[in-house]
């Protein structure tokens, strides 16, 4: 009893401002309702049939694999890019920054078209791609990963860039005086400092890749068991058997609950908080 009351009193004074409650509650309802409706509308008794008939499991596996690979690629390439954008100064940096974040606003379908123009058979580096890798990129599994990375990486970059900007440079200076090389400062001081932002950015990026639809459809080709991801499958099912479509959301909702529920609280807690 006392324990609970005392805990409630902890935040008193700087606790919840009432002004945030009504909009926050509305936001919860708004975001919750469609998901709830989807779950309500799932034809539970038909679930077995649907999952058997429709190519759900291969599509889910493909979605998870490709989105994780796209996230990994985004981390490997996007975090260094974010660092440069945040810290490196040269004239025209603002333009460079805008250019690399264009995929953010490019509608995914145009993204797909753009990927064709770049890496397709007739794309500007399509011939080079073929001679290096020995195959044409479009309509292959790598094409999905490329499409998802193209669309999702900017989300990671923007999130992490902001963190690099506000990260305390003081500790980096301290590390420099302790003899740490720039690379070591980056890996051992700056990265841990912005770890919460990297996790948040990776979650956004992964979510964007998992839900990616337009570019994947076009550039990947939506071929069952090869390039058909869950989002593209949904479109097919929705066209064919609209009543079955809600059932396809379930695995993703489950994944989301597990990933966001477990991971967020553990990893998004910043080390610096008291």
């Amino acid at each position, binding site marked *: 009893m006392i324990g609970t009351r005392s805990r409630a009193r902890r935040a008193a004074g700087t606790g919840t401002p009432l002004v945030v409650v009504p909009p926050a509650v509305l936001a919860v309802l708004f975001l919750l309702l469609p998901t709830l409706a989807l779950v309500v509308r799932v034809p539970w008794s038909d679930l077995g049939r649907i999952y058997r008939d429709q190519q759900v499991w291969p599509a889910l596996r493909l979605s998870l694999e490709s989105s994780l690979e796209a996230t990994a690629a985004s981390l490997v390439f996007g975090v260094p890019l974010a660092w440069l954008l945040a810290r490196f100064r040269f004239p025209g940096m603002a333009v460079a920054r805008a250019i690399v974040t264009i995929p953010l606003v490019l509608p995914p379908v145009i993204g797909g078209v753009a990927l*064709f123009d770049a890496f*397709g*058979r*007739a794309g500007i580096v399509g011939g080079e791609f073929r001679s290096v890798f020995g195959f*044409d990129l*479009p*309509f292959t599994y790598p094409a999905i990963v490329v499409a998802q990375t193209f669309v999702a990486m900017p989300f990671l970059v923007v999130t992490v860039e902001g963190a690099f900007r506000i990260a305390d440079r003081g500790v980096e200076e301290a590390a420099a005086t302790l003899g740490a090389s720039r690379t070591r400062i980056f890996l051992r001081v700056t990265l841990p400092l912005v770890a919460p932002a990297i996790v948040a950015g990776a979650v956004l990026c992964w979510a964007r890749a998992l839900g990616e639809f337009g570019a994947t*459809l*076009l550039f*990947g*080709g*939506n*071929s*069952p068991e*090869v*390039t*058909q991801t869950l989002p593209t499958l949904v*479109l*097919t*099912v*929705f*066209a*064919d058997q*609209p009543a079955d479509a809600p059932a396809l959301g379930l695995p993703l909702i489950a994944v989301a609950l597990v990933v966001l529920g477990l991971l967020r609280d553990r990893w998004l807690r910043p080390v610096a908080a008291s």
Partner: protein
Amino acid sequence: GCGSDSDDAGSSPSATTTGKPTGSITVFAAASLTEAFGTIKKQVEAEYPGTTVNLQLGASSDLATQITQGKPADVFASASTKNMTSVTDAKDADKPRNFVSNTLEIATPPKNPATITTLADLAKPGVKVAVCDAAVPCGAVAKTVLANAKLTVKPAASLQDVKSTLAVVESGEADAGLVYVTDVRAAGSKVHGVEIADDVNASTTYPIATLTHAKNKPLAKAFVQYVLSAPGQQVLRSDGFSAP
């Protein structure tokens, strides 16, 4: 002329005393009808001066869903009876009538890089084939055709409607696509057509109907009538459609 049996005369600006259709309608039509209905639209608008026909083209299945979800429209022309049935089952369309049918043809990029000459060439390894998604009419027909020919083809791409399928071929990203003969004809020199033998080819039937909640029933009926009429049918035939 047609008598007005619109449900609500007050909300229907077209319900004039003369009974001559006026105002505008929205026609939902299968993507494969793009060119033919484009022409018919102009002819109907010329026939009834002051009217406007808005065409919305897409995969028949998408259009059917939109109608059952209440998107306002006046006419639905589907590329398969299946999608029309889902609309009539929902009591959203009046009695449909079949107006044309359509068969498939192979489309390749103009230079035909994979040298496709027969349907069987699609099964050759390394040939990238684009088809419509099995959920849309042209995809269903493609399935039947390949089954008729006892061919196992693993398509590289299954796209959302026939026009996207054609677009992928046009851009050269696919070596061949299974599309309607009408699409090959409409694309002109942008693709090269390879005919499919009649004994394995299959067709889909196109029904058309006015919609239950049409805002402008008179013009809707006039449009359907025109499609079924000789001038309308002539436009469709010249684009490659067959009799239903």
